[in-house]
């Protein structure tokens, strides 16, 4: 990376576009403002979940333009064309970002992917053996929920998406062992599992809306909780592939029980805890039962889905 003084000299020697890159260089070398990380653990990657996007894109954009500039400055027309083209691309990227952020709030999505290795290991252990865990509350830090990096109970979308991909690969392998593999089957399996997830999230959201359960579960939270069952499915399939039919049913029973316990404990905190904020009236007595029924129905539905999506792969 060029230091400030040498980059200034390089730009001054080129007469045509020396003024515009000055502003960008200032922005690129200014230290970025970052919200304080509560735990202070060493991060493997840069924490972009709190950075403002325009600063990041401008810094990266300028880097490429600067390095290419001093080759082309001999021909002012070419360098003008390069600057024009890159500014067009920059505008296009801004428009695309704006359109995407209208449908999917990117910062909310970044919260779900702010994970690290210890969180993933602890969460996987929790999904397969939740009986020892005591405290299921999601901790808050000044009104915003803590990122998954700092709180084991927080839902994330990294584990569900990775588990989904692993499930698809395992399904391909299982079909290959049975001799029924072809590349189309892989795509069919993937879209089938995706459709099940979408249907379950839609059914959950509809049930929560119709029964006026005012919880703070967003769509992404529901997606995360229903995506966690893929971990159980992977364990079931591995057990079935390694140990045959008996192993399949044994690991199915184990994974179903642990996942049901996990779901009941996690959702009980979120759904039933909103009772304390509601006004107590004559209709309130029916509510705890309804919410309990919802949680129980969700829990009972999981082993069915796990069995349905894995039994045809293990013969």
């Amino acid at each position: 990376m060029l230091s400030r003084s040498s980059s200034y000299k390089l730009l001054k020697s080129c007469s045509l576009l020396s003024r515009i890159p000055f502003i960008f260089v200032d922005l690129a070398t200014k230290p970025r403002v970052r919200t304080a990380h509560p735990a202070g653990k060493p991060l493997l990657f840069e924490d972009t979940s709190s950075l403002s996007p325009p600063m990041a894109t401008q810094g990266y954009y300028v880097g490429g333009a600067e390095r290419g500039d001093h080759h082309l400055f001999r021909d002012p027309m070419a360098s003008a064309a390069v600057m024009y083209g890159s500014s067009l691309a920059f505008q296009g990227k801004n428009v695309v970002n704006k359109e995407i952020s209208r449908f999917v709030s990117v910062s909310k999505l970044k919260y779900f992917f702010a994970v690290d290795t210890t969180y993933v290991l602890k969460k996987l252990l929790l999904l397969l053996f939740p009986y020892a865990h005591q405290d299921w509350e999601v901790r808050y830090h000044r009104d915003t929920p803590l990122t998954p990096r700092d709180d084991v109970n927080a839902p994330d979308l990294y584990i569900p998406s990775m588990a989904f991909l692993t499930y698809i690969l395992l399904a391909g392998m299982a079909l290959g062992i049975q001799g029924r593999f072809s590349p189309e089957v892989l795509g069919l399996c993937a879209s089938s599992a995706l459709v099940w997830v979408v249907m379950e999230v839609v059914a959950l959201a509809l049930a929560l809306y119709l029964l006026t359960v005012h919880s703070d579960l967003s769509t992404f939270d529901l997606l995360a909780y229903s995506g966690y069952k893929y971990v159980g499915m992977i364990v079931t399939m591995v057990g079935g592939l390694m140990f045959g039919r008996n192993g399949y049913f044994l690991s199915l029973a184990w994974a179903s029980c642990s996942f049901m316990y996990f779901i009941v404990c996690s959702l009980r905190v979120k759904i039933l805890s909103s009772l304390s904020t509601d006004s107590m009236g004559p209709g309130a007595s029916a509510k705890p039962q309804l919410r309990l029924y919802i949680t129980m129905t969700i829990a009972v539905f999981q082993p069915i889905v796990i069995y349905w999506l894995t039994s045809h792969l293990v013969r």
Partner: protein
Amino acid sequence: MAFTLYSLIQAAILCVNAIAVLHEDRFLSKVGWGADQGIGGFGDEPGIKSQLLNLVRSVRTVMRVPLIIVNSVCIVLLLLFG
């Protein structure tokens, strides 16, 4: 049951169309699902029926124009490609 994404889209379009054809005056009021029959007791949590009626009415209002577009596109594509 092998679901594809295409069958999901088909099912979604058919369901939303089904909700959109429920006419307010000619049908819903006769059954007892009209707009004025949904509002139950005030100050209390709305029951399932009023939530459902609210949902039906809002789906009909919001999805009217997009459904016109989507249905036209579907008709043209099915005519051309079978």
